[in-house]
């Protein structure tokens, strides 16, 4: 047995946290803790179910929770989220029901997208969380178009594109940042740098010192933030959103985090990660960093930790149970939604070819 690594403390006084989170800061902290606990419980349960063969795939977001939870809390209803693989918690925090997300994970008949996607690719239009593909980076230029439309419609909304360190090498990172800057659009580009693109470490992804510095080439500001520090994310993203809403244009934020799990249920990091990676990541565990700060400042005791832990586990268990009891999508859904429903009425060839 090795001793648990010391947690890197969050470097704030209560006054500083209050100033970052605003008047109801204690309530916000409690919400942050609860959502991070739920994310952790969901990841643990789903990884277990994947190993048992009860879900086909899972991409855990363990280590990313501070970014997703802060983003979910600091964005407004009118903002749009164009996510990558590990942002589902943003949708849940913004109000997408966990039960509906579980139907997606099990690709069942009650999944709003009718079981058509691999797990962790939900569509949640109820909270403006846009459907994603598995292609890396394409959502970055979608965010630019959404932001253009928001401005054209005079909406106060901001488009947030989430993507990883690997996506900074992809075509649409270049195209999207360039267009957003030229047109001065309300977009926040959120690069969640977990330091691994499957097996490739970030220092072999790019030769720049920080990914945030890439913004200079496009004429927009960039900033690296500690993505395991939920207070720093809330404050930094909040400022970027305020500026974007005020017409000050786009910004690139890089959130440095540690991927605390394999890339997905399909790889073994023992093949490519250094031996001390797990310990380094554990020291910067965003959930434990928040928990230890709250405990130290009398905002979280052992009893409530246990109680919240049990409550979120039960919530996850109930959602999973409901999804597992739901039947598979009906066969007729195979050929629906390829084209608009009106297409089959209006054209002799019909919507779904080959049927």
């Amino acid at each position, binding site marked *: 047995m090795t001793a648990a690594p010391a947690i890197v403390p969050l470097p704030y006084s209560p006054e500083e946290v209050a100033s970052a989170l605003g008047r109801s800061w204690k309530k916000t902290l409690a919400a942050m803790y609860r959502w991070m606990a739920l994310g952790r419980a969901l990841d643990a349960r789903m990884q277990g179910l994947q190993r048992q063969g009860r879900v086909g795939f899972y991409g855990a977001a363990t280590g990313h929770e501070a970014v997703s939870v802060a983003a979910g809390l600091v964005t407004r209803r009118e903002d*749009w989220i*164009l996510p990558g693989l590990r942002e589902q918690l943003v949708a849940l925090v913004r109000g997408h029901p966990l039960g509906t997300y579980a139907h997606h994970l099990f690709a069942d008949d009650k*999944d*709003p*997208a*009718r079981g*058509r*996607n691999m797990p962790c*690719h939900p*569509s949640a*239009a109820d909270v403006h969380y*846009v*459907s994603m*593909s598995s*292609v890396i980076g*394409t959502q*970055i*230029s*979608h*965010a*630019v*178009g*959404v*932001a*253009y*439309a*928001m401005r*054209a*419609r005079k909406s106060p909304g901001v*488009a947030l594109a989430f993507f990883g360190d690997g996506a900074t090498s992809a*075509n*649409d990172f*270049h*195209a*999207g940042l*360039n*267009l957003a800057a*030229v047109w001065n659009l309300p977009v926040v580009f959120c690069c969640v740098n977990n330091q691994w693109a499957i097996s490739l470490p970030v220092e072999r992804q790019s030769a720049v010192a920080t990914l945030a510095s890439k913004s200079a080439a496009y004429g927009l500001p960039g900033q690296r933030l500690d993505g395991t520090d939920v207070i720093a994310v809330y404050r930094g993203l909040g400022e970027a959103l305020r500026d974007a809403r005020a017409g000050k244009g786009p910004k690139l934020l890089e959130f440095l985090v540690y991927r605390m799990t394999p890339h997905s249920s399909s790889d073994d990091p023992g093949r490519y990660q250094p031996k001390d990676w797990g310990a380094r990541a554990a020291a910067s565990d965003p959930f434990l960093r928040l928990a230890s700060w709250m405990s130290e400042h009398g905002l979280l005791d052992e009893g409530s930790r246990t109680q919240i832990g049990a409550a979120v586990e039960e919530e996850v268990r109930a959602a999973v149970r409901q999804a597992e009891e739901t039947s598979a999508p009906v066969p007729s859904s195979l050929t629906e*939604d*390829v*084209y*608009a429903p*009106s*297409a089959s009425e*209006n*054209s*002799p*060839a*019909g*919507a*779904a*070819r080959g049927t």
Partner: protein
Amino acid sequence: MTELTLVQAVNRGLQQAMRDDGDVLVLGEDVGLNGGVFRATEGLLKEFGEERVLDTPLSETGIIGTAIGMALYGLKPVAEIQFLDFIYPAFDQIVSELAKFRYRSGGQYPCHVVIRSPYGGGIKGGLYHSQSTEAYFCHTAGLKVVIPSTPADAKGLLLTAIHDEDPVMFLEPKRIYRSVTGEVPDGDERVPFGRARLVREGTDVSVFAYGAMIPVVTEAANALAAEGISSEVIDLRTLVPLDEAAILASVEKTGRAVVVHEAARFCGFGGELAALLAEKAFFSLKAPVTRVTGYDTPFPYALENLYLPNVERVSHAVRTTARAG
């Protein structure tokens, strides 16, 4: 009615849609101040302003990716890709994103973008200003693929495309942008998708074509009439959705079919038509289905007239098919 060239008709279609619907906007390279390299967007910047006529940076993936985002939010973007040959940086956005948004979101995020792009040879454009690669897009479920051959259809089909609910690839035969003129209805007169156009009625051979091949095929049919061969010429107009009923009805009547396109032969759209006829009109056929197409080579510069199907090649194929069996 107004007498217009095909490219003028495209322009009037855009103008009409933008006047009628404030959500319609145009974006692409050189579409604003320059009015498009073929002048398809001429005058639009002046009438509708730079918020609705966007000169974009040089990035096809950026143009289509941005148009997708605009459409997700409810605008109706019409994106121009300057030449179909330059569309490939955006291919990922078109086939992975645009074509699949409605399906993968269970209808939560329909994504209606019109992509206009001049295609095809005959303008001395060499390898990269001449290709006819409509089949790539026909192969991807979720896209509609439209190719007009007359000014009236160019405007009418474009209006249908812009007011449709699905993504549409609107491919314009640049070789006949100015060589073909015709009467075009004024106002919002739309031509429906999925209805082929009977160009010329005939009894001996059905000839199927689209876009810039229509004038070639029509000339061949007129010449063959003097030899006593009666050709029925059908302009498909929309490859997806395809007017199967019109195709099958014609072949049931004539029993013989020739398919003409300037795209390369192997896995070209003509192969799909031949398969359709084999599956659904086999017992009506009196002769093998014949294809007249471009060659399975890159598109050539000096020898483009050899590459492109011409009146002689089409006439030879129709004559042979008429006499076969």
